């Protein structure tokens, strides 16, 4: 058991990778065995992630050096700097890992029947598991170039999954937009990595953070990294591709793409707080993030109000909700240098933003899954053509209501707990942030009520006489996420103490991250 936990960072990345390639021979033999392999490997990964989380809450940052004689030997004998690839898992990384493991399990379960009528299902699961690998790698790695490799793995498999249903024209276009945006973003990241390597001859985040000087080249690298990652998360004004790609993917994949957006956001936080934490001009960068975050919140929701396509409508809401997290963590960044303000409201604002990542990662995939359930039987994504579906799809209706109440921040659901944490803390920073947040929240509720009314309420429509409740595995997939929402709703303070505060502290405490890597230097 101890050895399992010691090696768990690499196992969490390697198990989905191995399973991805095993699905091909096993899928040729038996469909059931392949499904069991996919679900079994992802369930084991969930178990490993929770075991690792418990270990981190007791022993602190977990290091894993690839290829070293001992996993915590970060600096090889005879060298002054870390040259090997290091996986560094702290409170924030494992927090993202927990989200990713649960959502990918729910998405895989949901896919079992959602794509059961498609051809080439085995390749679908291969790509899905590769995407899981890429996501975990992005969250756990402590090495900049390794991050680039994993973001590419997640992007390539994600784009292939968006275009998976090749019989539709719009899926091809959505996938193409996604891969173009990803390719440009990752090349910008690679260029920035080159700029940093040219000056410091280092790729490890912890060692770089210690050496960094904030020269002009560093500033250019920071700008390139932040623009690339903001583009990947769909921050306004770089959001135009986002609904096009997210609305056409199979619903289970859309749920997972939301989390890869969060992983890019996590990387942006890691770069601002850990890599540049000691030297960054925090108020300026913080204010830039806050202003674009506000724009993202507002533009996303106003575009969503007019949408008739149920998945496009939810994608614009995803853009809007991502703005809350940028604002929450942006406020924390803006007061990073000031210990007094940081303890008064900065840490709470960051906790609110990070808490909102957790909540959004539960209810947004749930809403996308219900949208996919509607599409599964009605064959249309157009809300004006739906109606009266509550008569036939009772589970989907209930789950949609849970998601709607949660995204609109209705007390006592989990969306409310994180939003109130953001509102209270950012009000002390600047009242306009809270006012915008509340207006966006009201618009969200209004548009989701309208969508609910047009899809579920009213008399049964004659063309949907044959519609029945969606298959069991789709319901199980949705219930996994709804159970997460109910858990956070019932025990918000427990979740904040156990997961959110450690994550926020891990971002603030740059020294611990650096010392874990370079501590061996006398």
């Amino acid at each position, binding site marked *: 058991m101890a050895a399992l936990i010691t090696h768990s960072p690499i196992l969490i990345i390697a198990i989905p990778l191995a399973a991805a390639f095993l699905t091909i021979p096993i899928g040729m033999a038996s469909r059931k065995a392949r499904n069991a392999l996919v679900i079994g490997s992802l369930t084991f990964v969930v178990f490993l992630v929770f075991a690792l989380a418990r270990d981190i809450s007791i022993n602190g940052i977990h290091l894993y050096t690839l290829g070293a004689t001992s996993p915590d030997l970060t600096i090889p004998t005879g060298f002054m700097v870390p040259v090997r690839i290091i996986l560094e898992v702290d409170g924030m990384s494992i927090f993202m890992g927990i989200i990713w493991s649960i959502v990918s399990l729910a998405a895989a379960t949901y896919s079992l029947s959602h794509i059961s009528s498609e051809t080439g299902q085995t390749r679908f699961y291969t790509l899905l598991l590769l995407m899981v690998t890429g996501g975990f790698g992005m969250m756990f790695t402590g090495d900049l170039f390794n991050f680039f490799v994993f973001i590419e793995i997640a992007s390539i498999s994600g784009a292939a999954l968006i275009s998976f249903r090749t019989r539709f024209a719009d899926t091809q*276009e959505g996938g193409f937009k996604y891969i173009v945006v990803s390719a*440009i973003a990752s*090349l910008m990241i690679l260029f920035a990595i080159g700029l940093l390597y040219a000056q410091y001859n280092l790729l490890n985040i912890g060692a770089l953070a210690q050496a960094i000087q904030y020269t002009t080249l560093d500033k250019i690298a920071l700008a390139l990294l932040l623009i690339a990652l903001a583009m990947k998360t769909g921050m306004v004004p770089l959001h135009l591709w986002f609904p096009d790609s997210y609305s056409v993917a199979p619903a289970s994949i859309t749920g997972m793409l939301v989390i890869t957006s969060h992983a890019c956001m996590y990387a942006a936080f890691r770069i601002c707080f850990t890599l540049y934490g000691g030297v960054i001009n925090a108020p300026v960068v913080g204010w830039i993030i806050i202003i674009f975050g506000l724009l993202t919140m507002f533009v996303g929701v106003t575009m969503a109000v007019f949408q008739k396509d149920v998945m496009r409508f939810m994608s614009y809401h995803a853009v809007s909700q991502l703005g809350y997290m940028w604002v929450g963590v942006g406020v924390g960044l803006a007061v990073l240098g000031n210990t007094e303000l940081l303890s008064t409201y900065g840490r709470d604002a960051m906790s609110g933003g990070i808490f909102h990542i957790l909540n959004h990662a539960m209810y947004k995939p749930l809403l996308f899954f219900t949208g996919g359930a509607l599409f599964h039987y009605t064959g249309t994504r157009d809300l004006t053509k739906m109606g009266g579906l509550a008569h036939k799809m009772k589970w989907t209706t209930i789950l949609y209501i849970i998601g709607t109440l949660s995204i609109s921040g209705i007390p006592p659901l989990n969306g409310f707990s994180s939003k109130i944490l953001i509102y209270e803390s950012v009000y002390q920073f600047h009242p306009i942030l809270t006012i915008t947040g509340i207006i966006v929240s009201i618009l969200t509720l209004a548009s989701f009520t309208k969508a609910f009314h047009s899809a579920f309420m009213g008399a049964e429509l004659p063309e949907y006489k044959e519609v029945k409740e969606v298959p069991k595995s789709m319901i199980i997939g949705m219930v996994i996420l709804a159970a997460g929402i109910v858990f956070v709703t019932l025990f918000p303070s427990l979740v904040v103490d156990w997961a959110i505060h450690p994550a926020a502290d891990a971002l603030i405490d740059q020294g611990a991250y650096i010392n874990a890597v370079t501590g061996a230097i006398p």
Partner: protein
Amino acid sequence: MEHIPLNFPFLAAALLVGIALYIIIFKKNLVKLIMGIALLASGVNLFLVALGYRAGGIAPIYTDAPEGPMVMSVPQALTLTSIVINVAVLALMLTMVIHIYRHTGSLDSEKSRKMKG
């Protein structure tokens, strides 16, 4: 190599990146867009390779290595990885363009844009 200024490769990389960005932003043909991304990748790769050059350094091949300081092989390793990844990205893009062409009969990004709003 003596008569080529040391920063010449960096200028070439910058030129490649500039041309690539121009193509990506202004060209409407999807295949030309892909070519733009390939050029962008080449520019970044050239930048990485140029970083690895040290005047007077010798190649990091241990077999029959001459005396002298050996260059660090990290930038070359990065470039190789990046080339492999970009091959995958470009291949995937081209397959998608083939599918787009089958559905819409056009490679013009303005014409094939069905999704609005």
